[in-house]
């Protein structure tokens, strides 16, 4: 005898009208989803699970089906995948330099006020991904360069079971270069850097969270700060802006002298621990203003002092890498990589206390993050890429791995990537507690820091690659000494 599944049992309870409604919903589903059978069955099951969730929470079928309206799928799953995207200039290095167990992955998370409903997150992802065609891709090898090939499939939202920022398997046919996860009240998205940078990643996370909250039943009136997922993607959103901007003729060198590394043995498992320092944005802003600098410069000064405490080296330079969003200088809507970086460098012997170094840090940051300086780096990137155009990938691959393995991130002590303030519509903000941003890209650096501000909470996330806790302990001590209220959240130490 065939055993009825839960959805069949649910259908048994429905009235004839409701059954007809459901039947027409799923016949419409068949017109919207023309994927291979296995994928189609899974997606159908996703919708069934969502309907069951709504039913269990007392939401009427009509309301449920209106929230799950299949027009949100658009034609994405009904059309064959034909588009492809050459990698942007910044992304080209990532597949060349990745190795087994090492990949440039970053994570962005939103912390909601209620536990995440996996059934609705899955639907939110299925609805959202169509707006980001360059994410709905798989990495492929060309003869000269890698590229992103469109991949129409069911993208899965999964329960978080791994350490943050673990390599994403991109080797199989159609495998995506990002993952969406949930854990308790947190929705996280991890991206292989080949797809996007922090700005693009955050645009996606905002859309995903907004769509998830809409499915929960929270609508926003003014959605101007979140992309409309039902609008057609525009060419400019997937553009390689490196190729479109006017660059100066002068270039700059990528190579810099080696920087002092923080102490402690590198762990095999990276990151070894993730920590989030949750600060009050108003207090942080006031502290930065007291020191006459920006929040980024102030945080850099704190990191220099904490860094000095976390190494036994008495000479040499400490250098902190600061990614720069090029959209500041060249307004663009692209969700591909469009960032450069600069390095703020200080002799270790000059690092004493915050007030005495903050001016130098601020001046360096202003100078090195200026339009002219980063534009020179843009020119260098373009020249490097152009010089390698005709070199087959089979030669580029081992050469890049050798050079990257040799140089790695030795010219920096650590990184601070400040995403700035993230805005969400007011109605949605009320249901979001905070956000965080984790950098998981280090090779030899013992720590990588990401910072993001949402409402009045600034979260500084530190991904540690050593057991030695002196950096974070000193950072905490400094923050407290500056009169800031700090809450620390994070992971256990991961098994090495």
């Amino acid at each position, binding site marked *: 005898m065939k055993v009825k599944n839960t959805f069949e049992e649910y259908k048994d309870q429905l009235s004839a009208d409701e059954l007809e409604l459901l039947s027409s919903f799923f016949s419409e589903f068949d017109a919207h989803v023309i994927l291979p059978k296995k994928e189609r069955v899974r997606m159908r099951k996703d919708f069934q699970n969502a309907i069951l969730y709504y039913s269990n929470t007392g939401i009427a079928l009509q309301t449920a089906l209106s929230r799950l309206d299949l027009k949100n799928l658009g034609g994405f799953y009904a059309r064959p995948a034909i588009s492809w995207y*050459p990698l942007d200039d910044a992304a080209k290095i990532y597949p060349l330099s990745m190795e*087994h167990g090492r990949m440039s992955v970053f994570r962005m998370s939103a912390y909601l006020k209620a536990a995440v409903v996996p059934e609705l997150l899955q639907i939110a992802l299925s609805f959202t991904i169509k707006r980001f065609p360059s994410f709905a891709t798989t990495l492929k090898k060309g003869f*000269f360069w890698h590229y992103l090939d469109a991949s129409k499939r069911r993208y899965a939202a999964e329960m*978080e079971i791994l*350490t*943050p920022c673990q390599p994403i398997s991109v080797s199989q046919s*159609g495998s995506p270069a990002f993952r969406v996860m949930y854990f308790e009240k947190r929705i996280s998205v991890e991206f292989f850097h080949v797809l996007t940078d922090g700005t693009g990643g955050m645009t996606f996370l905002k859309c995903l969270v907004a769509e998830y909250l809409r499915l929960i039943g929270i609508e926003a009136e003014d959605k101007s700060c979140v992309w409309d997922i039902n609008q057609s993607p525009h060419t400019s959103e997937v553009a390689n802006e490196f190729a479109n901007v006017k660059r100066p003729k002068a270039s700059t060198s990528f190579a810099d002298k080696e920087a002092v590394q923080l102490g402690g043995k590198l762990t095999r498992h990276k990151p070894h621990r993730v920590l989030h320092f949750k600060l009050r944005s108003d207090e942080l802003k006031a502290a930065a203003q007291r020191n006459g600098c920006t929040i980024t410069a102030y945080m850099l000064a704190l990191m220099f002092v904490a860094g000095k405490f976390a190494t036994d080296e008495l000479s040499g330079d400490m250098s902190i890498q600061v990614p720069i969003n090029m959209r500041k200088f060249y307004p663009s809507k692209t969700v591909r990589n469009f960032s450069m970086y600069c390095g703020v460098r200080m002799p270790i012997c000059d690092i004493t206390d915050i007030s005495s170094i903050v001016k130098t840090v601020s001046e360096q940051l202003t100078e090195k993050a200026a339009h002219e300086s980063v534009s020179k780096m843009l020119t260098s990137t373009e020249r490097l890429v152009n010089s390698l155009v005709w070199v087959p990938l089979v030669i580029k691959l081992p050469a890049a791995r050798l050079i990257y393995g040799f140089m790695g991130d030795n010219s920096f002590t650590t990184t601070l990537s400040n995403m700035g303030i993230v805005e969400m519509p007011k109605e949605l903000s009320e249901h979001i507690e905070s956000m965080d941003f984790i950098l998981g890209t280090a090779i030899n650096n013992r720590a990588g820091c990401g910072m993001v501000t949402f409402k009045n909470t600034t979260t500084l996330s530190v991904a540690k690659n050593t057991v030695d806790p002196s950096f974070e302990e000193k950072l905490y001590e400094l923050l407290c000494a500056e009169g800031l209220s700090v809450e620390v*959240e*994070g*992971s256990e130490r991961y098994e090495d």
Partner: protein
Amino acid sequence: MKIKIIYPDTAKHSSGRRKLLKILKWPFLAALIACPIVNVCVGGKAWSIIAVAGIAMVWSLVFAPDLVEYNRLSQSVKAILYACIMLILIDVFLVSGWALLVVPIVCLGGLILSSVLFFSDCRKQKQNMLPMLFLVIIAVIAAIAGLFIWKDEVSWPFLAMGGAAVAQLIACIIALRGEFIRELQKRFHIK
């Protein structure tokens, strides 16, 4: 500093593969060094070259698989090309005189296998076409070279291999039509 734990316990999910690789790396390295040393000490034919190539082949195919495009078509083509290289090395360094016959036949087998894999799931496998295309091109070049250099010795294996390669290419173009050109544009783009 009091830390509130907000991440799941991942102790159970530590990578077994990574541990296995770490353990296996050493015997592989030891064999890689020991083979040439023993070969030089004992003397005789250069069997260590074949041993070292075999170790590299096993490591590449089994323990350090491709990070991008690890699929049945790419792995089959890779295994066939490695096998052909191994056969040529054995012929050159150990027992000579049979490779001209055997290698084209093995390559022909590889072409047939890749055809089966490709045409059995053409829609999905078109994304993985490049390795097969390489095998076809190599087979055509090898067939032309073979027929030109060894025309008086053995010709039919080269003819069979070259013919199969050309047929496979034509079948591929017919099956994919416009998409074939699009696939080539992607694969050979320089942007």
